[in-house]
């Protein structure tokens, strides 16, 4: 009896823990529940197709370790870190691990973005603001990335994101996930405290949370251009008042038939050759504009192989 009671208690405790931040439970997307989407996306045929390919999870769990790379203790610790970050920033924070085969980096980004967009993450925020940390344990080419949604995009530019990704590269590569995630969340919190990223201070969000450039009136350019054009106009108009000019040539009195050039000689003196090599730039260009996922919602971020 006592053993039976202990077993039931142990089982109950385990299940309870599992429900709090278990990362493998999935629900069904049906037409009745709008395919599990409670965000403003217009669920057309294409979006329904993408939603049906995306796991439907309980957003309260926050940790979705489909690849089972974290221990229970690590999941608990991570959960507390996530809560602290959410309290500080007001952004949702999600951790996802999965094993997805891919041929392009964009597939990782699309998978993570769809996971965020077609589940109830960030519902309490304007623009569904939040962050998803994605670890793809695909054996042939492991990948990890951090992606930002809504107002989180204004705090984490590509410059900041690159620093964050680089800082956890060794940890993720050596499967030391918890140390990497601790460092990552701590750094993200520090960046949030520093304020919006100055690299994207001229950007804002449109109605779908896509990062777009703000309209900044070009006052300096308008002033300079107006001054230049005004001066040119005044110069032309005032010159019309000045008609008198001393003649320096007598071309109109020349008898053109009388012109005779009796000697023409071109004497070569010396020459020299210079050269330069055209360098082709292979630097990548950063497009500061955001991306849109299949939902139409905007996001930014990037990832690394390893």
């Amino acid at each position, binding site marked *: 009896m006592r053993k039976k009671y202990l077993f039931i208690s142990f089982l109950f405790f385990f299940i309870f823990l599992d429900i709090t931040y278990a990362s493998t439970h999935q629900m069904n997307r049906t037409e009745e529940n709008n395919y599990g989407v409670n965000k403003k996306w217009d669920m057309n045929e294409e979006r329904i197709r993408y939603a049906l390919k995306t796991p439907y999870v309980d957003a309260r769990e926050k940790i979705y370790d489909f690849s089972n790379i974290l221990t229970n203790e690590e999941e608990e610790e991570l959960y507390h870190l996530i809560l602290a970050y959410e309290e500080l920033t007001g952004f949702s924070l999600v951790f996802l691990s999965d094993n997805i085969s891919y041929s392009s980096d964009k597939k990782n980004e699309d998978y993570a973005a769809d996971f965020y967009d077609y589940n109830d993450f960030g519902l309490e925020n304007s623009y569904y603001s939040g962050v998803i940390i994605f670890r793809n344990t695909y054996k042939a080419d492991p990948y990890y990335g951090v992606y930002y949604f809504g107002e989180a995009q204004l705090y984490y530019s590509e410059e900041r994101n690159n620093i964050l990704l680089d800082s956890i590269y060794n940890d993720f590569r050596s499967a030391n996930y918890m140390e990497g995630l601790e460092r990552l969340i701590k750094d993200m919190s520090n960046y949030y405290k520093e304020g919006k990223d100055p690299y994207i201070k001229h950007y804002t969000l449109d109605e779908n949370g896509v990062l777009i450039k703000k309209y900044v009136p070009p006052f300096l350019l308008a002033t300079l251009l107006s001054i230049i054009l005004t001066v040119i106009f005044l110069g032309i108009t005032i010159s019309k008042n000045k008609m*008198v000019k001393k*003649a320096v040539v007598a071309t*109109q*009195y*020349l008898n053109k038939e009388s012109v005779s050039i009796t*000697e023409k000689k071109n004497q070569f003196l010396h020459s020299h050759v210079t*050269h330069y090599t055209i360098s082709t730039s292979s630097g990548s260009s950063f497009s500061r504009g955001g991306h849109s996922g299949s939902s139409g919602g905007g996001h930014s971020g990037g990832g690394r192989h390893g």
Partner: protein
Amino acid sequence: MARKKALDNKCPNCGGIVLFQPSLKKFKCKYCDGEFSLEEFSKYTNASSVKNNNKEMDETSYDTYTCSDCGAEIVADSETAATFCLYCGNTAILKNKLSGRFAPDYIIPFKKEKKEAIEAFKALSKGRLFVPKDFSNESNIEKIRGIYIPFWLYDVFVNGSIEVDANRVNTWRVGDTVYTKTSYYKLYRTGNMHFFKVPVDGSTHFDNAIMNTIEPFSYEELIPYNHGYLAGFFAEKYDVNEQDAFPDAKTRCLETAKDILYNDCVGFQAKTVAKNNLQTKVESNKYVLLPVWMVNVKYKDKLYLFAMNGQTGEFIGDIPLDKKKVVFYAILLFLVLFFVIILISFVLYWIGRAS
């Protein structure tokens, strides 16, 4: 006729000839209508004092004539060849001024009448934003006068050579490397050419730049001189002889000749004339009278001379600026441009967003 020594007759305003007007008991400039008493004259450096007058140090002399119609005394300076009797308005052609070596060879009679000159003067304001409002008022227009200006016409032969420093640049590419070859040359051009009837005005009373600007005259209408053409107009004889006037013509001919030889150096870049050995020779010169309508306009204590070619109608002069209008339009234009540029940038931003 007795020659009487007189005061220096240069107008302090415009440098024109000043005559004493008995009816006004003042000296009056025949070009700008400025009026001066003897005392006012003494303020200016050109003016003679009573002491100087007593010593008769001035260089200008006046002649007096009798009007053939009314018998009144006409006073004219030594360069005036035709004028008007101040009492009866009759034209007075001072024939002895245009005889001997001062007899013109040719003349182009006036083709444009006074009313055409007045219309051309009024039309100067059109299309010019900053002309003062009272610029073409009647008091300015009535001062328009037709004057035969003395000119020298030169036939000039130019010959000689120039040396030009030049280079030639060739560029080509092999793979990712761009090569530039610069070759340096010395170019020699020798030649000769003729210039016909290059005009230089033979009077110190008229600004050379203005006389240049109303060129050219059409020489097909040059006819042998006759006093009769002067009736109804003013006229001057030359006070700059052919040797002294020639340097202006020489400079223009040499500059044109240099340009022709220089432009023959084709296919080269960065050309500069290193040496110029061009020379001129006067083949002939003629003394002619050419028709010009002139008016002196006074605006804000400054005189502006306007001249119209009495044959072709070319009307020129430096028109004064109304500074208040300049400032007003400058500010208005700046503001309009500023807002238009901001508006265009905003529209482009929205188009970019929509796409």
